[in-house]
């Protein structure tokens, strides 16, 4: 459904996204995970054609975004960050307008609104003025907006930001209910969100992809990188370490620095140490290295602290 190749975006001297590549298959629910400022929103904006990439190619549903933006936009229900809405309008009026410009035929607009309201579970506020709704409701109105033309692909930028725990649970359930029916790409900086809703995750940091896979495989602690510095024969070292995991080696004269990606276990260091020594190599350094992925995880929000955030925001808005 989505194919992204070598995607880059530069603002002046600031490189927001660099050489990003990933793909999302039809029917998948994929999380786009990264700390704040990693380039998530910029990437989603390029996918939806709101921003032009500096370099690279995006194909969605077989169409090139830069060549045929409107064919692509017809496939996408996009919820921008912060859920922008026409606040002076009533919920149903807003959705009727959005359905019209998304090309829903006039006759089907009423039923399209009903269906979107039902899916987002906000039928009770259909006649309310958006400005008078709480942040949680507004977020779900924006979700109904994304759903109103019944698009095959949903792109949701931070769909649960500003919601209280109950609303978060509802939104996640809603997203999970799309499994098999719609393709979903959602961005978040909250690790448990990805684990709760996504089948696959793409992790980015400082505009680069630093990992991808199933949420469980990416959990800190499932794998570790062991840094080994030893003197002796390069071939012997590689040969010794290969039985412990995937190896990359850089050498300077006869001193070699190897990184071994191995399943994490308490014994791994001991096993590597004795293997290296018994092969006759001089061991200089041996430790668990911090990976770029772990650096990212350290910056992610790993607990659900959004409820407090909601209160703070609403207080701010009332003032």
């Amino acid at each position, binding site marked *: 459904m989505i194919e992204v190749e070598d995607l880059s975006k530069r603002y002046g001297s600031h490189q927001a996204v660099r050489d990003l590549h990933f793909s999302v298959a039809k029917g998948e629910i994929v999380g786009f995970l990264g700390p704040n400022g990693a380039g998530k929103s910029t990437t989603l*904006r390029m996918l*939806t054609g709101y921003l032009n990439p500096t370099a690279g190619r995006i194909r969605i549903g077989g169409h090139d975004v830069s060549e045929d933006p*409107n064919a692509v936009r017809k496939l996408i229900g996009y919820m*921008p960050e912060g859920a*922008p809405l*026409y606040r002076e309008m009533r919920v149903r009026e807003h959705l009727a307008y*959005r359905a019209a410009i998304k*090309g829903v035929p006039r006759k089907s607009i009423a039923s399209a609104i009903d269906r979107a309201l039902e899916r987002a579970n906000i039928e009770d506020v259909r006649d309310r003025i958006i400005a008078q709704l709480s942040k949680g409701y507004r977020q779900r109105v924006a979700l109904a907006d994304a759903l109103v033309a019944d698009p095959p692909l949903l792109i949701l930028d931070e769909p649960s930001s500003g919601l209280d725990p109950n609303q978060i649970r509802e939104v996640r359930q809603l997203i999970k209910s799309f499994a098999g029916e719609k393709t979903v790409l959602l961005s978040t900086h909250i690790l448990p969100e990805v684990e709760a809703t996504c089948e696959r995750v793409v992790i980015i940091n400082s505009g680069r992809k630093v990992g991808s896979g199933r949420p469980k495989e990416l959990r800190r602690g499932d794998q570790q990188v062991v840094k080994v510095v030893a003197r002796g024969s390069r071939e012997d070292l590689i040969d010794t370490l290969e039985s412990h995991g995937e190896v990359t080696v850089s050498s300077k004269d006869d001193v070699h620095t190897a990184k071994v990606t191995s399943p994490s276990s308490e014994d791994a260091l001991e096993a590597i140490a004795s293997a290296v020594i018994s092969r006759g190599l001089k061991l200089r350094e041996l430790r668990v290295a911090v990976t770029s992925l772990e650096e990212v995880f350290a910056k992610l929000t790993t607990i659900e602290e959004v409820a407090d955030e909601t209160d703070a925001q609403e207080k701010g808005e009332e003032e």
Partner: protein
Amino acid sequence: MKFLAIAKREIYSFFLSPMAYAVLTVWLLTMGFVYFMFAQYFANNLSFGGSDTPLSMFFGQTILSFVPQLVFVPLMTMRLVAGENQSGTIESLMTAPVTSTDIILGKFIAALVFWLTLWIPTLMYVWITSRYGDIDYGTVLSSYIGVLGIGTFYMAWGLLASTIARRQIVAAVITFLFLGGFFLAGLGEYVFEDYRELFSYLSVWSHMADFSKGVVDSRYLAFYASMTALALFLAVRVLDTRKEIA
């Protein structure tokens, strides 16, 4: 036909805002006062000259009908695009399957409707005048043709300013500078004797002097049409350019 949906929403939201009613009220007070002054003047000076009537004076023989326009047009056009930018809805608008042309055209139609709501109540002055004297309805019609022409021209440049600026207040200032600049250029008619013809062609004041006497000069209409087309074309380009930098 998506531009019609965009125009409809714009008009709807405009009339939901208190701003619309404040603007309309102050406008009608101002224009009502201008009309009152001319009516009073003619009532006290029966022999006052030639082809002029209270209505022709009102429609543009004096600067009094233009100064309010230079102030009110920026207020009515400032939120067209800059307002969507401030609320963030520009992102959901530009990621819907619509073109920049749809957006600009829809906003422009809405702006024209705003312009008409300013002027339709002035028909009341025509009605009042008709009760106390004879009216040449031909000159009334040609005056309103002029008003509509200037409206398309001014609203298009206001829309362009609202597309360029990120904030409404900046849009209003830019529009005022655009329109004020054009108006001042028109006054060049009285400054540069050698180029009198050229400057009077640019001067909406001179145009309205003719329109209000019943002269519909197609050169003026061509001027409005080309200025409008230029501003709308630039507005579409500006909107497209946002994708590089937004």
